[in-house]
């Protein structure tokens, strides 16, 4: 398992580099598909079967398809290689180095908290049920009892609809908003609301532009115009 995990992680990293460094947009997209897929595998190795599925369905299946579709629509030209002397590039590399070093050192030396319950509040008990291993360094994976009896998917789903019902509902709002937004932004102008004055910005002091729907609007504007 360890070897499998290590291999997946290395492949993920390489695929991720493909996203960033591919000159062709479509290669980037394909690399991202690869990365996402490899991450799904990693999730599976980490006993997160539910997420494995979601990752594949939502990301690889929907999001990336959308990307590819847009790429096809817009047909971007290939990009020239970023110069190594670009300060942004240097900064990015330094950031990678810095963060990786910090994370690595910290995670090896760091102390992870033991979350043991001290009171009998619902929240705490809940945490104790699934989260509190006496020694988190001992194993990866869910508490044996829960996973053996119900499985990962059930456990997560159960949490989603009980403890995390509020965030779950919020996601629905997010999706709704995204839908409205996408529709609004992409559809052609509709109805009586006229386009603004062609995006042109008349010089200050210029004469007011006469617009055809002026009269209608005047009635609309609270308090009237002019």
């Amino acid at each position, binding site marked *: 398992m360890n070897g499998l995990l290590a291999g997946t992680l290395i492949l993920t990293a390489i695929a991720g580099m493909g996203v960033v460094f591919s000159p062709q947009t479509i290669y980037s997209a394909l690399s991202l598909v690869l990365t996402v897929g490899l991450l799904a595998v990693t999730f599976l190795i980490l006993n997160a079967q539910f997420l494995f599925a979601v990752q594949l369905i939502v990301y690889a299946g929907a999001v990336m398809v959308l990307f590819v579709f847009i790429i096809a629509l817009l047909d971007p030209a290939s990009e020239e290689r970023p110069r190594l002397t670009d300060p942004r590039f240097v900064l990015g590399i330094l950031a990678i180095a810095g963060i990786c070093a910090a994370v690595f050192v*910290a*995670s090896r030396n*760091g*102390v*992870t*908290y033991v*979350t043991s319950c001290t009171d009998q509040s*619902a*929240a*705490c008990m*809940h*945490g104790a049920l*699934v989260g509190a291993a006496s020694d988190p360094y001992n194993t990866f994976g869910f508490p044996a*009892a*829960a996973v053996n*009896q*119900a499985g990962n998917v*059930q456990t997560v789903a*159960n949490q989603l609809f*009980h*403890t995390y*019902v*509020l*965030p779950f509902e*919020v*996601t629905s*709002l*997010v999706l*709704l*908003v*995204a839908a*409205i*937004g996408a529709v*609004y*932004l992409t559809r052609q*102008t509709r*109805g*009586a*609301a*006229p*386009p*603004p*004055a062609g*995006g042109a*910005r*008349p010089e*200050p*002091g210029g*004469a*007011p532009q006469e*617009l055809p729907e*002026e009269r209608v609007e005047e*009635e*609309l*504007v*609270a*308090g*009237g*115009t*002019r």
Partner: protein
Amino acid sequence: MSLLAGLPLATATPGGGDLIGLLPEVIAAGGFLLLMLADLVVPPERRTWLAAFSALVLLGALGVSLWGWFDAGAAGRTVYFGAYAYDRLSAFTNCVILVTSLLSVTISPGYLNRRGLHFGEYYALLMAATVGMMLLAGAASLMVIFLAIELLSISLYILSGFSRNEERSQEAAVKYLLLGSFASAFLLFGMALVYGETGHTQLVQIASALNRSGPLDPLLVGGVILVFVGFAFKVSAAPFHFWTPDVYQGAPTSVTAFMSVATKVAAFAVLIRVFDYAFAADYSRWSPVVIAVAIISMVVGNLAALTQTSVKRMLAYSGIAQAGYILIGVAVGVGNPLGVQGALYYLAAYALTNLGAFAVVTVMTRRGEDMDSYDHLRGLWFRRPYVAVAMGFFLLSLGGFPLTAGFFGKFLVFAAAIEGHNVALAMWGIATSAVSIFYYLRVAILMFQRPAEEERAYQWPRTGLAGGSVLLATAAGTLILGTAVPLVFTVAQLAQAGTIPGAT
């Protein structure tokens, strides 16, 4: 269910008590859904009805929030299993957000009509953003925080680009979207670290975990800092502010007015909750960063605003600077009630004042374009004396002159800094405030100078009932917060008095 009955799974089910805590958000969200439907049936020339409906919903939510202030009581509680705090802090911020939202809705129809942007989606999105902000203000779990931020951000991305055929608006939207997602990623990664190192996403438990902690955890502080970066982006604190001027300028002004104020209020509310309460134990770790960001914000915001020529951009930079001042209160807010009280007072003051200032820009808008250049302001006094006086008043308040709301905001955060033995921080505030007076007053003076001849010949739109009432309301609020200080200050004290409900 029988299959699962014997399993050691969570069986906690949300009940009515949970819903009561979330009632204002639920009302607003319901309004959001209804608005989408109503948009389909309301004829285009009657879209002002949508505004009226939104206002009604917001008023309802406001009423419920006010009721919630008393219902939650001094102690407050969390609902939905530690996901949302039903306490006075959230009630206070909810009220501020709802009021700003209400005022934004009121100025919108006139403005949108003049810009040719009057679509029903506008109100729906505004309502969604409001829901996101209220959720954010009350969020008591990292997950809800992230989702609320995304909800309000996505709504605002779209609203920024609401002027679909205007390049500036679209550009603003793309900038906001890309940078906003970028910042969200930072926030998320920070949350992942915090979650991982404490084992929890609920703030209550994070706080108790931190209290129990023995030796320091570098990854945890790294996560804390990344979370802060994410929030700093939302409150547009320097050096994470770069999106602000461009987006404020490009977005339709009514949207700018709304997002410059409400987003900041919500984000600061959550910043206070997360940092001054949940992360209080790690105060010594994160406070240098917050202080640094506060100072950089004050310096960059005020100095950059000096040489602006667009009111919207100037107000954007001013907003960055104001974020710095509020951050003073946050930075010294741990164990120092005055810090949080000051920040809350400042938020309320800033909300009214800045909204008023942007409202002036909206009522100045003429057909099809924003009139936000300094040249457009010149001679406003001669065309629209009351608007000019109101604008002057808002600018004075932003500059922190006495008898305006801004003064007591500044006073309280500086007092908090000094009480927190951080005189240097207050000194930075003082020095940059002095600088800020220059650009505020420069604009104020412009309004009272004679306009050029051709400008005078131009027929300027009238303020209108809605715009006038918004200006009146904001000006009155600014005045009340500047004079009847105990009124709001007591409220801020009460709001501050509760920590995260349930925390030890």
